[in-house]
């Protein structure tokens, strides 16, 4: 097994053009598990952990770009005000895992249980990819297309993600057997977009890919409108149950060792109710 160690992104892309079978490895928290358990025997590994171009966090006029090699620990430290993303990062693995694991890895592995992915869905992030010929931006929903399947071409590398963070409260929450080192049984990200008077919700671990609960989003926004909540955060919202029901309906869960489909759907409803209640409480708090 060759280990290819480019010094720059350009070098890495040149190698990828020549050897598209080379498997990129950054933090190693997924790839090394495959190698250690003899499940993965790529002919070559491409070490992208040292590429400075992938290690940047940039903020420009409300648009945030996070390099594919930025660790979850760095996201927690450097982007604490992106509440949903920081919360999701903090639920991932353990301190040891967060020091190495990256958003780029979540995207490359493309597991529906990738905890950063529901956040990218509500942020409506673009995935930035590159090959030798140039770069392209892929909308989040056009990148991961099935369980562990992406539209990334063999000669391409994931460079980072780019998104505009909506103004308003947001959260990420998940269900698992303990508070660390779990693969989510269900995960949910909710974000309020004050400027568009919209609510955005995405679910993880309950379908082949991340899913947005668009009917529930519209329902919540309309109920908030009707209650006068957009202008008066102290107003009360009724029918959280109806909202939770709609969120549960978009889940396409399976029975597996971690939980049953019925339990997962129930978990989505519970997380939905809680998340909307937290967001409304945050809005009340902010208005005081």
């Amino acid at each position, binding site marked *: 097994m060759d280990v290819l*160690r480019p010094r720059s992104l350009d070098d890495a892309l040149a190698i990828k053009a020549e050897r598209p079978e080379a498997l990129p490895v950054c933090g190693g*928290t997924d790839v090394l*598990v495959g190698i*250690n*358990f003899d499940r993965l025997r790529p002919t070559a*590994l491409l070490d992208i952990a040292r590429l400075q171009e992938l290690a940047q966090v940039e903020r420009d006029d409300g648009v945030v770009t996070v390099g594919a090699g930025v660790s979850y620990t760095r996201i927690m430290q450097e982007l604490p005000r992106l509440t949903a993303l920081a919360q999701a990062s903090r639920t991932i693995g353990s301190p*040891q895992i967060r020091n*190495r694991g990256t958003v780029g890895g979540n995207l490359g592995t493309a597991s529906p249980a990738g905890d950063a992915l529901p956040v990218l869905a509500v942020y409506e992030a673009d995935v930035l990819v590159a090959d030798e010929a140039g770069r392209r931006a892929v909308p989040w929903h056009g990148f991961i297309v099935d369980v562990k399947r992406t539209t990334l071409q063999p000669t391409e590398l994931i460079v980072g993600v780019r998104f505009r963070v909506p103004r308003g409260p947001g959260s990420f929450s998940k269900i698992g057997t303990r508070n660390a080192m779990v693969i989510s049984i269900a995960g949910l990200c909710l974000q309020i977009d004050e400027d568009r008077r919209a609510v955005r919700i995405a679910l993880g671990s309950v379908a082949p890919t991340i899913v947005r609960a668009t009917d529930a989003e519209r329902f919540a926004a309309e109920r908030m409108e009707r209650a006068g909540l957009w202008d008066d955060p102290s107003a009360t919202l009724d029918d959280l149950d109806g909202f939770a029901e709609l969120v549960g309906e978009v889940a396409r869960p399976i029975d597996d060792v971690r939980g049953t489909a019925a339990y997962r759907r129930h978990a989505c409803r519970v997380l939905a109710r809680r998340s909307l209640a937290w967001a409304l409480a945050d809005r009340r708090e902010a208005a005081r």
Partner: protein
Amino acid sequence: MIVRVNVNGTWREADVWGGASLLFLLREHLSLPGSKNACEQGECGSCSVWLEGQLVCSCLVLAAQADGLAVRTVEDLSDPQGALHPVQQAFVDAGAVQCGFCTPGLIVAVTDLLERDPVPNEATIREALSGNLCRCTGYAKILDGVRLAAATQERSR
């Protein structure tokens, strides 16, 4: 392939398989068996080391990725004359060791925590140690050990 790693202040070289982990390099090539090999999937933390000052599971880092970098292992903590590091001493005094297999990883994780936060609260301790599993103690005496180490270090400051 040849990798050259600065381990506990000394540059060491070894000829490793490309898919070898940093843990394998430490244990099998460099005769440093303090870091333990247990789950090989980052679940248990018994292989915890510092890579460029960052706490990592050495089973999830390619040996090749550590080439040219600094690694610090549990072997670096006690002094060469044999005096234990305050965290190690606190684990002994608190009875935080049973079978001992998780101990090196926990010692490294606790040392990392106390270097960043010398007086951690309960929640911080639990979060910091969430990546280290112990199947013997039930954790109560390990948490005693952390509090004792923090108190001892605070007194000697």
